[in-house]
């Protein structure tokens, strides 16, 4: 559906901008390759400056990459670089829908005219009649539950309504691809949550292929069919939300999505995907898809909620460490304990019914399939 290969976009570095010729180029997007299937909700996730927005804007045609290839349904939208024919379809000829972070609702138009605009400005040959424009606008406003606001000035809508209006405007031309640039980041927390489900429902019902840009891991995990985690212009890991969460391939991904304890150690034995790792806190037996030969220095990444705390020694003896509770924090729906094991401190998240006094000696159980191995930085 959407294929991106070898996408590169760089800017002149600080020194070059000041007039020096030697300034290094800064890569906003560096050799990004993506393949998005039809009907997917594909998320570009990363901290600010990671290149996710630049990638999205390159797809939109609002940014001109240096080289690479962007195609939608076999139609080349952009192509440049060695061995490639140079193509750059203008943004207004790409036929994509886009929802901006600020929604970019035109304040001098009514709700109806905002949505009608994309139909009105089509090239002469493809333009539809006034009646049909009206019908189509009303149909999409109906879906977005905005029909009764059609004649209102667009600025007289609430935040959530403006978001739906932006979506209606993007969808009215029935685009092949919908681009969403942090559409929830301008809303308050409660509204954000409800609109997240709303967005997911609409995307499923309409079956529209969408590219979603966000820096919010919860949004990414809950909405997406696939996530590409980006950093410094590169895709760090690509996969389904659960895979990425459970098997982060790097320390960065393990830290950026959810939170993790990192325990340094080295691989002492391996057979297939079963590993034995010696750490500062003790020995670990685990299964991991990572490829680490024996002797490699590694970090074991362990999610706080994967740690089980008990005061009695667990019956099966595998991966059990002993420690002392340092600090305890009640979070409402969970309780965090910081447990000291020698020089190492681990954060363990438990259900609220588990609550241990600081100073209590505890046993920590680490399930073999809940520990990931990531390279040390």
């Amino acid at each position, binding site marked *: 559906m959407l294929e991106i290969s070898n996408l590169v976009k760089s800017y002149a570095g600080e020194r070059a901008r000041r007039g020096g010729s030697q300034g290094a180029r800064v890569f906003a997007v560096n050799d990004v390759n993506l393949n998005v299937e039809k009907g997917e909700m594909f998320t570009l996730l990363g901290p600010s400056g990671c290149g996710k927005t630049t990638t999205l*804007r390159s797809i939109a045609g609002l940014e001109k990459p240096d080289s690479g290839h962007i195609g939608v349904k076999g139609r080349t939208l952009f192509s440049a670089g060695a061995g490639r024919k140079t193509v750059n379809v203008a943004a207004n000829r790409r036929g994509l829908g886009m929802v901006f972070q*600020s929604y970019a609702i*035109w304040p001098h138009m009514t709700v109806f005219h905002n949505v009608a605009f994309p139909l009105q*400005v089509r090239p002469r040959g493809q333009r539809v009649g006034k009646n049909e424009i009206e019908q189509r606008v009303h149909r999409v406003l109906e879906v977005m539950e905005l029909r009764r606001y059609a004649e209102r000035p667009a600025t007289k809508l609430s935040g959530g309504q403006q978001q739906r209006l932006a979506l209606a405007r*993007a969808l009215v031309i029935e685009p092949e691809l919908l681009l969403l640039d942090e559409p929830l980041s*301008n809303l308050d927390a409660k509204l954000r949550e409800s609109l997240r489900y709303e967005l997911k429902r609409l995307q499923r019902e309409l079956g529209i292929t969408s590219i979603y840009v966000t820096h919010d891991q919860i949004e990414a995990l809950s909405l997406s069919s696939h996530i590409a985690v980006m950093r410094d212009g590169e895709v760090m890991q690509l996969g389904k939300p659960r895979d990425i969460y459970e098997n982060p391939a790097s320390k960065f991904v393990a830290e950026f999505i959810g939170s993790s304890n990192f325990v340094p150690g080295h691989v002492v034995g391996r057979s297939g995907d079963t590993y034995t790792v010696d750490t500062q806190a003790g020995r670990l037996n685990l299964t991991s898809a990572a490829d680490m030969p024996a002797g490699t220095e590694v970090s074991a990444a362990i999610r706080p909620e994967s740690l089980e705390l008990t005061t009695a020694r667990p019956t099966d003896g595998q991966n059990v460490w002993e420690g002392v509770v340092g600090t305890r924090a009640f979070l409402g729906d969970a309780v965090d304990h910081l447990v000291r094991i020698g020089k190492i401190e681990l954060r363990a998240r438990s259900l609220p019914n588990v609550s241990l006094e600081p100073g209590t000696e505890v046993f920590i159980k680490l399930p073999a399939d809940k520990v990931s191995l990531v390279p040390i930085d």
Partner: protein
Amino acid sequence: MSVATTPAPPAPTPRPPRTPPGPGRTRRFWVPTPKILILGVVGIVVAYLAIVPLWFLIQGTFFDSTSNLFTLEGFKRAYTDAQSFEMMRNSIWFAIGSAVLSLVVGTSLAFLNVRTDVPFKGLFFAASIIPLVVPGILYTVAWIFLASPDIGLVNFALEPIFGPGTFNIYSVWGMIWVEGLHLSPITFLFMVAAFRSQDPSLEESALMSGASRITVLRRITVPLLRPAIAASTLIMTVRALESFEVPALLGLQEGIYVFTSKIYFMLRTYPQDLNGAGALAIGLLGIAALGMVLEHMLSRGAKAYQTVTGKGFRPRPIELGRWRSVAGIAIIGYFFLTVILPMLMLIYTSLLPYYQRPSGKAFSSMTFQNYADLLEMSKATTALKNSLILGASSATLVMVLMAIAAWIVVRSHIPGRKLLDLLSFAPLVIPGLVLGLSLQFVYLRSPIPIYGTIWILLIAYCTRYMPYGMRYAVTSMQQISSELEESAAVSGATWWQVFRRVLLPLLMPGLLAGWIYIFVVSFRELSSSILLYSSGNEILSILIWEQFENGKFTTLAALGVVMVAVLMVLVSIAYKLGAKVGLQQD
């Protein structure tokens, strides 16, 4: 004073708990605290500066100066004489023409600068400080050298093609040309701000909807800019209407009058028609006030256009392609026309023994004699000294007063603070010449013997630039969290200590910026000084004016170069200090 407010505790310990002044407890003598004293004085001074001139203007207009009886004779003379219809037509023509010219030039430049990849972007801002460093009087004189029918250089150059006197600067068109160009940098800065504050994604989303660049410009960009365009047209129209130098230097000679030059003319011919001049001044004031009110309503209406704004991704500038070089040439041309040519003309003239067209002979006769003569001329050194003293003292006075006034308006809950705000902004609508006339009314009748001294100019400048000082002070006050003051108060500091030790240091950058701005604009003030100065006590801009009236163009040019040099130094100090010298010039 502290004795009265906080009764000294009895010397021996333990200290008795202080009883709070409850409702039942009354003091026998009410002695104001320093805070109330300071605030009171500031309030009274601001009210005095803002109200008294207007009151005397009305009195001087409606009451006969000898019989002291109510009269409408002034209005009758001013608005019903044969020329008054033409005067008003000229005023409207001149004001709207200049506003439109500056709008077309300023908006196109702003669009090119903000939205396209046009070359020479640095030149724009160099050109935009021109109205600040080259006062209207010098700019106008430079254009006389360039386009007067008999000595104009441009006419001379075009003579082989179009015959003598192609352009006549002494006409309404000439006035529009000079005023419009002089205003265009201000419109430019205004529109740059408008273009920049617009959320670029509004245009990008239109592009994504499939609209072409032209459609986006026509259906999104221009409609969204409409409030800004309307507001700047209004402001520029009012400015042109209030402008004195251009119509006085270019119009009076040919008998083309507008409001300001007509007022000046009526006061300079004997017998002086004070009632008539006052009537015109009130008319002008009314129009200016109306313009300001309209502008205020417009900018309030524009707020309805504001939507959620995002992080504002810097949009990719429009690539001009082959038009890039055309735009580049246009910009160089604009820069040459508005900056280089007038400045070259002034410098050239200042080096000649008498004005002549550029030729081999002219260049060989060049000398620094005019500058040497300035040193000999006692008037010139006095004028420079007076201008510097007046600039520095009005800047200091205004900023001190306004720092306190801003505190009252922004921070305090004192009743009447809204009124104080309004009063401090009121002089903004008073054209310089009208203020000059009003102060003339005040101090001709008042027993305070400052008429004919430079101190009356100080009062004029303080009044005129009070609104600007207020704007600087209020803006910087609003940027300081009130918690900083509160924490100082909780630590035990008195109001004055908080003000002096916490607020003032934090306000300093903003106050300094305001100080320099007021120094610059006072240094070059002409339109109110022209009615208030007395000979022997000239200031620099008046001296330049006198040289023009006496036809001493070479001395004028030398004085002008000195003035521009001083202003350039001041403005570059301001830029060095990082002060945003706004270009709200007079």
